[in-house]
């Protein structure tokens, strides 16, 4: 069991009535929820549900048309000290293909004003020893995920945002990622994982947010599983397919 009051206990995130439209497509509609600090939250939803858009708003890469997002007590990453407290793994945030693993970490460390000694630490932490001189374009998808995670861990963040972190990972990598998420939570980090893989989410998260343009469910994993008669998959599909049928989705707040 994780401690109720972890030592770090940081990383607050609050969405309040966030809406975003791209032309005729309503990507997000009145999305409101908050992450519990020091807990792992799974952000679930089908393709096109708005998960990536929501994460982009959270990171200050996109602006909501309505509503607001608050990260670590302020507007998304509007201050450098907040950027130092957030780590991100996201497909849409890529790497220059010609840069080496080591150079990418050097660039990120310089941006954050971190000493280069930190680079060796995160390389060891994510298991990229021996790959420092490899160019990004020569790295496998799994190695790129590890590099993205190494960059994310550089500032020793309070808030870790992982968008489909298991993409391209082999079973060993998936197990390693799961342990890393558990360790992060044990150390008091707030972790937000957006994923399609229900079985993996079920093993890693404390809380769940189900999103399909708007929030269909937000609460603890146990509560959602209970709704599905003991099966997360049943509960998830009941919510998502129910949202297809109903004009207005049911919103349950934790």
């Amino acid at each position, binding site marked *: 069991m994780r401690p109720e009051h972890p030592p770090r206990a940081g990383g607050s995130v609050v969405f309040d009535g966030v809406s975003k439209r791209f032309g005729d497509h309503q990507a997000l509609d009145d999305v409101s929820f908050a992450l519990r600090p020091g807990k792992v939250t799974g952000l679930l939803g089908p393709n096109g549900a708005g998960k990536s858009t929501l994460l982009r708003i959270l990171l200050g890469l*996109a602006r909501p048309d309505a509503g607001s997002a608050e990260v670590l007590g302020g507007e998304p990453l509007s201050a450098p000290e907040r*950027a130092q407290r957030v780590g991100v793994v996201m497909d849409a*945030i*890529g790497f*220059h293909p010609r840069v080496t693993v080591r150079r990418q970490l050097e660039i990120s460390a310089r941006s954050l004003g971190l000493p280069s000694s930190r680079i060796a630490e995160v390389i060891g932490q994510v298991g990229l020893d021996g790959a420092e001189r490899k160019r990004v374009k020569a790295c496998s998808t799994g190695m790129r995920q590890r590099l993205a995670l190494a960059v994310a861990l550089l500032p020793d963040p309070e808030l870790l945002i992982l968008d489909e972190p298991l993409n391209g990972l082999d079973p060993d990598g998936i197990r390693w990622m799961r342990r890393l998420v558990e360790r992060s939570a044990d150390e008091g980090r707030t972790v937000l994982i957006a994923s399609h893989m229900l079985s993996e989410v079920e093993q890693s998260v404390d809380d769940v947010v189900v999103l399909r343009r708007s929030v269909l469910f937000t609460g603890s994993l146990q509560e959602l599983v209970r709704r599905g008669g003991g099966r997360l998959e049943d509960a998830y599909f009941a919510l998502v397919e129910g949202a297809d049928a109903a004009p207005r989705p049911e919103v349950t707040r934790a």
Partner: protein
Amino acid sequence: MPEVLRNQLSAELLKLRTGLALPALLLVALAFCALGQLGLVYAESDPASAGAELTANIVGLGASAALFATLLGALHVTGEFSSGSIGRTVLYAPGRSAVVGAKLLATTVSGLVFGVAAVVCSLAVGYAALAAKDSGLTVDGSTWTTAAAVLTICTLAGPWGAAIGFVVRNRLAAVLGLVVWGTLGQVLVLGQLPELGRFLPEGAQFALLGDASGFPDALAAPYGLLLLVGWTAAMSLAGTRLFTHRDV
């Protein structure tokens, strides 16, 4: 300069030093300048009597490197948009304006490198080409005035390209646009519409170089400098405004 901005600038300079863009474009720029300078010397029937004017013209051809400094600036920005790494840059910066500021400053430094290399290479190529024709460089005040103009033009070309990158975002469009404009477009406009061309960045470059033979309608050098700075500042403002208001 605040520490967070120093960190950004340091990271941007490291990015510029990473990869092949800087050395490749610098080499092509110097080769391009050298070709023009060799042509100039070998077209001169009596280089000994041409004296300081020929030397100044040789050095002035170093300004051709500005096109490549512009390309590097544009690639430095558009490359991040195409790889998606711009998201990480935004994430670690104290604000989007700081991202633009750091990139403009870094490309100013790279532009300066192009300028220094162009001037040094011009003098070296000129020296060798004139020596082959039993002549030599005639260095006087006009040589250094022209060298200062080349340095200024190349230094401003870096942020000019970076600002265009923030406006255009698409790498292919930016590079094609700059190359087509830099080779054909400006020749057409300066040749056919000199009243308009003298106010464009290319006309301003001729003004700064004091090259009346290349573009007789050029303004006086101080106005050329003001225009170049004005164009760079205006494009930088446009780039900043677009970058801070659009989603990344």
